[in-house]
Every structure is written in structure tokens, then in C-alpha cells.
């Protein structure tokens, strides 16, 4: 390839550098403001980019019971249960579809792929959930999104890559389907299971509209709804919501930023794992999907 020009390299570096700053600076400002002392915040008139007197008061205030603590537990629970159920259903269906020529293989595959093409619409979905008696029930946040057809297809593509001889020799030895799935197929597919599990987990953690639509009682709110109410809509949050026994409540902005940090941190924690695996998983999806 030709020698790249110095100007070209400089321009590219500038674009990438600015892009990274645009991502990092907001996080940094939010994090710093959440741990800054009230004096620093009032001196800066709001956001703080560096704190000399870090304090965890804001976190203590939101995590010592009250609406944020409860929402955190709700979100964690939905994410854990939802991801487990989604993975089981996805693996099972993908495995069933990884055997071309089996009974009803074609119709089930078509039926799965077809769901990518259309969306039933908000109103019919709401009525269905209501009809099934799931309104105000956590299951309404899980069952409608239990299965993502795209994930099924990606996982199936992975299962199809496994050499047939391996499965056939296991059949010869008298192993049943379930045994083959658990003992041979899954151990060979750890990467794709991890990546799809993480995708499901992120989706459950981030779900906002389904919670707004299907949950009526505020005490059932997950974190995203609390975030919307007290940070996006700026509804004042005080000791009534926090049931905190701190003498002086930290400044509103610290509390808001602490809620924001709490909802971002889990994503940051699992992000390296997604990074590690996704290229592989996505490539298969892109090639075969």
C-alpha cells in the first residue's frame, strides 16, 4: 500500500480522538459529580470534573432502602431470570432447528425467521398481555421478549458448524438428543452462548418501554423507570423516596448522578466479556443470517 500522508494520519487521529472524548467525558462528569462533596458542587454550580473530597453519601442515600434500592433489585432479578429463561429457550429451539430434515423442521424454521419481518404492533401486544392476565406482572417483561429470532438463527448457524460425525458417533454409542446437546454441542459452543446470553442480559437490563407499558404500580418499577422519573423528568427525589436516615440529604444532582452510575456500571462490567466474544458471533450471523 502507498505511504500514508502525515496529514491523513493526523486527521484520522483527530476524528478518533474526538469520538472517544465524546463518549468518555459524559461518563467521567457523571461519575465525578456523583462522588463530589456538596461544597464542591455548589462552588462549581453543578457538574464537577475533579473532586478532592470524594464522598459516597449519594450512594449511601440511594442504596439504604427506598425506591432506588428496590428498583435495583427488581432490575437485577428480571435480568437474571429473564436471561436464564431466554437462553434455555433459545438453545433448545436452535438445537431442534440444527437438524435439517427432521420432522416439521421447515415450518418451524420459517415460523421463526418470519418474526423478523413484522412486528405485531403496540396495541395488539398490549391487549395480548392484558388478555393473558400478565399486566402488572414481571412475567410481562420477560415472556414477550423471551425469544429473539435473530439470536436463534445465529446460534443455529453455530450448531450447524459442528461436524456431523461427532454427533453420529455419539448416537451410535446410544446417547439421546438431550445428552448430545449437553455433553457435546454446548461445550463446543461456549462463545456463542456467552455472547447471546450477554445480549439478552443487556436487553433485559435496559428495557424501559415494556415496563412503562405493562407495570402499573410504582413499587414494581425497574431501574430504567426510576431513572426516567427522577433524572430525565427531573422529578424531585427526597427522603420520602429514599427512606434514608442521613442527616443531610446529598445535593439533588449527586443523587441523580449516583442513580445514573448505578444503572451504567453493570453494563460496563459485562462489556469486556461481550467485547471478547462478539466479533465471532456476529460474523457468523452476518454471513449466514
Amino acid at each position: 500500500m502507498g505511504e500514508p500522508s502525515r496529514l491523513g494520519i493526523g486527521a484520522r487521529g483527530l476524528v478518533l480522538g474526538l469520538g472517544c472524548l465524546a463518549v468518555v467525558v459524559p461518563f467521567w462528569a457523571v461519575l465525578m459529580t456523583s462522588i463530589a462533596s456538596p461544597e464542591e458542587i455548589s462552588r462549581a454550580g453543578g457538574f464537577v470534573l475533579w473532586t478532592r473530597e470524594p464522598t459516597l453519601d449519594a450512594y449511601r442515600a440511594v442504596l439504604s432502602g427506598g425506591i432506588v434500592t428496590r428498583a435495583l433489585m427488581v432490575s437485577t432479578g428480571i435480568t437474571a431470570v429473564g436471561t436464564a429463561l431466554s437462553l434455555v429457550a433459545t438453545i433448545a429451539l436452535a438445537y431442534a432447528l440444527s437438524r435439517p430434515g427432521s420432522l416439521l423442521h421447515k415450518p418451524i424454521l420459517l415460523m421463526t425467521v418470519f418474526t423478523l419481518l413484522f412486528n405485531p404492533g403496540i396495541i395488539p401486544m398490549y391487549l395480548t398481555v392484558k388478555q393473558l392476565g400478565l399486566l402488572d406482572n414481571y412475567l410481562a417483561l420477560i415472556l414477550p421478549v423471551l425469544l429473539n429470532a435473530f439470536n436463534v438463527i445465529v446460534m443455529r448457524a453455530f450448531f450447524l458448524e459442528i461436524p456431523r460425525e461427532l454427533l453420529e458417533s455419539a448416537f451410535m454409542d446410544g446417547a439421546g438428543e438431550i445428552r448430545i446437546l449437553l455433553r457435546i454441542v454446548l461445550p463446543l459452543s461456549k462463545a456463542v452462548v456467552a455472547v447471546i446470553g450477554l445480549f439478552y442480559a443487556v436487553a433485559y437490563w435496559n428495557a424501559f418501554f415494556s415496563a412503562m407499558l405493562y407495570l402499573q404500580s410504582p413499587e414494581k418499577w425497574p431501574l430504567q423507570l426510576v431513572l426516567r422519573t427522577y433524572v430525565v423528568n427531573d422529578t424531585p427525589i427526597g427522603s420520602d423516596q429514599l427512606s434514608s436516615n442521613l442527616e443531610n440529604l446529598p445535593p439533588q444532582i449527586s443523587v441523580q448522578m449516583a442513580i445514573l452510575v448505578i444503572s451504567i456500571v453493570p453494563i460496563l462490567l459485562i462489556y469486556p466479556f461481550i467485547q471478547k466474544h462478539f466479533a465471532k458471533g456476529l460474523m457468523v450471523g452476518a454471513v449466514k443470517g
Partner: protein
Amino acid sequence: MHSLRNRWRRDRVLLLLALPGVTALLLFHYLPLGGNIIAFQDFQPFLGIWHSPYVGLDNFEPVLTGDPVFLNALVNTLIITLIQVVFVFPLPICLALILNATISERLKRLTQSILYMPHFLSWVIVVALFQQMFGNGGMLNGWLRSADLSTFHIVGVPELFKLMITSQVIWKDTGWSTIIFLAALSRVDPAQLEAAVVDGASALRRLWHVTLPSIRSVIVLLLILRLGDSLSVGFEQIILQQAQVGAGASEVLDTYVYNHGIVGGDWGTAAAVGLIKGIVGVALVLGANRAAHALGEQGVYTK
């Protein structure tokens, strides 16, 4: 018949494994499709789907007669789609080209890790971050105020709303969307590029005659998917910010359906608009795919 029985005996475990997933798809993808029948009913929640009276095409009146509230939602949707196809769609391609040309592998990976991150944040978080940075009481205005400079107002200004949501989309998804282009770029034949260098082609000519043509089918594929989605524009993103700017600037088809149906109780009209949106959406995907085939590209599915 014998063979069917044999196949049942051989495959029943597979069918059992498929059962939970198939049930979920039937219950939450196919069954709700039937719920669209209320687009033709004067739906009353207490009467339910079975007993609400049928009213023919009455619910489609706002669409057929061009009701201004509906037209506003339609026009907003199309404008946002147009803005995003023109300004948002090419960005990941440019960014992928820049990343692809970055020589240091470590630097490339670090930048990718940072730029992909926002994709995994929820819309609530993205909107909250934007407000905290650019809002009237946000960080930038705080600095301007403390420096005795005049502040600016972009959050909550109806005229700037479309610009606002477009920047949010760019911030959240440009990095992530490069993945598929980077994958395509990694398959560009180095021999062709070297041949072009030998022939004296400038960097720009190499880009135009070698690199871009070899990722064309991916670009076309993604453009098709985007056009097929023309009528859906950032529902969660918009509903979160609608209260600040009002419906005039921010109502799109999806929020129209939500606001009229779930909030307003005008179930029939909302379902009718949702139904039309769904049908046109499917038609758009199929149409765009046809167009791709006519241009000699592969498209989403093959003929």
C-alpha cells in the same frame, strides 16, 4: 404413514425442545397479529375483542381523510427517516474506513472498545446523559454561566428536536454500526489494492475503485434494512423527550399509536394506524429488496 411414525419416534425429543420457543413465538408474535382485528372495531375494553361491534373502515378515517394530527405524525416520521438516512447512515462507513486505515492494532482495538460502548446503554441513560451535558442546567451551560458567558438552549426547543435526536443516534450507534463494515473491509483483496498502487492510483482512487466497490453489497443490504424501517424512528428515544417539546415537533407514527391508544383510549384508530404502518413496513422491505435484485445485488434474501 409408517415413515411418519418412525420420524416422530426419532425426532420427538427435538420437537419437545422446540416447544417452549415455538409457544413463545405463537403467543407473542403470531397471536397478537390477530389482535389487529380491533382496527375494524369500535373496541371497548370492557366488551373485549369478542364482543366489540364492528365498524368497517371508520377507524381508518384519520388516515383516509388526512387528519392534520395524523399527517403531522407521518411527516415527522418521514423527515426524521430522511435526515437519518442522509446524515446518520454514511457515518459508520466513514468511521470504518478510518479505523481500517489505522495501523496500530492496539490503538485500533482501544478506540473500538470505547466507541462501541454507548450502543449497550439504554435510551433512558443516553437521553439523561445528553440532558445533563447540554440541558439548560447542564454541564456546558454551567460552565458558560460561571464564565459569565451567555448560555444556549437546545434541550426542550421544538425547532431543534430533530437535530437533538439525530445527534443522540449518532452518539449511541455510529461506533457499533462500524462492525459489519469492518468485517466487509477485512475481506477486501490486498492484491487488488497493491496492483492499484503499482498502477499509480492515488489513495482516493483506490478507495473509489477498489475498496468501496468490494463493500457495496453490505452497504446496499444495510440501506435496504434501514429503508424497510422507514416508518419506525426511535420510539423509546422520542417518547422519553416528548413532554419537553410537545407533540407538534415530536409526534411520530409509533408515538401517535401509543398516545391515542394506550393513553387516550381511542383503541380502534390507534390499531388502524399501527396496522397500516406494519403493512407498509413489510411492503417497504420487500420493495427495497426487489430494487436491490434489479440492481444486481443480493439483498436480504435471494430470489
